[in-house]
């Protein structure tokens, strides 16, 4: 099992950063940066208008990095592609407490849990030093190979490769959120830049 923790400070207020985070996968200008994301759908949403709470579940369909040959043999034929990549459905569960200015996001894979389990937990909170101006972001990623994959004797390598890809994509995701924040900032000022 591998666990990675990351932190980042956005120099934008909480409401802007969380608005940007919602747009991360659906913003047309982000398609190139997040090209591993094939499709995103909202599957559930609940809005508690009395308490100011929002709960949503989205499916995120991603292309995996090319898999080692041995693991490919464990996949059903439908999942394999000539390049050795596979398609994976993840589910992202988000909860926003607007009065408390808290947003929590958990992403888990729902495909192939017999081989690998990935969980990514993120939080967005007002930064303790400048709560009205900055946002503190934390993210913990846990990757665990199942015994079936361990039998393949490549589990450790797979975990590492998977983790590397996750970290790359997390960094891209941060860049995308930063860019959308700047766009929203300009838009709020009444002068949205023409090129996002």
């Amino acid at each position, binding site marked *: 099992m591998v666990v990675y923790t990351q932190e980042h400070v956005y120099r934008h207020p909480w409401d802007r950063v969380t608005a940007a985070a919602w747009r991360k996968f659906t913003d047309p200008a982000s398609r190139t940066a997040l090209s591993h994301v094939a499709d995103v759908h909202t599957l559930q949403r609940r809005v508690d*208008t*009395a308490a100011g709470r929002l709960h949503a579940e989205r499916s995120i369909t991603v292309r*995996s990095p090319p898999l080692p040959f041995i693991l490919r043999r464990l*996949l059903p034929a439908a999942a394999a592609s000539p390049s050795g990549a596979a398609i994976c459905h993840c589910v992202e569960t988000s909860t926003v407490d607007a009065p408390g200015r808290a947003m929590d996001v958990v992403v888990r894979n729902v495909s192939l849990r017999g081989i690998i389990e990935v969980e990514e937990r993120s939080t967005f909170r007002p930064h303790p030093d400048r709560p009205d101006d900055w946002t503190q972001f934390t993210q913990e990623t846990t990757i665990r190979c199942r015994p079936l994959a361990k039998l393949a004797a490549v589990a450790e390598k797979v975990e590492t490769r998977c983790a590397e890809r996750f970290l790359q994509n997390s960094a891209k995701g941060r860049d995308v959120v930063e860019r959308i924040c700047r766009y929203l900032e300009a838009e709020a000022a009444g002068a949205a830049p023409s090129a996002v």
Partner: protein
Amino acid sequence: MVFGRSKSSSSAPAAASSAAAAACSELRAAYHECFNRWYAEKFAKGQWHKDDCVGEWHKYRACLEEHLEDKHLRQILLESETSYCVQLDPDSSSGQGAASAK
């Protein structure tokens, strides 16, 4: 990112959920546009007392119900109808506060 497969037997993995994507893309875009504006301009700024996008959501969701193929994802989608109110905080379920259908 991580390994996986779709339940669909499509020969092109990238097209795994393309049926839903193609059929529902306009309804999804309408919902996202509504949601993004509502979240940024109202909900996150303290005006959470009204859900502006109920109509857009119901249309989009109905489309997904018809076209979404993946078994796992369908299960989550269908859960949202049956367990809607049960899962909400009991203390916030008075009146219409907890309902998204109002």
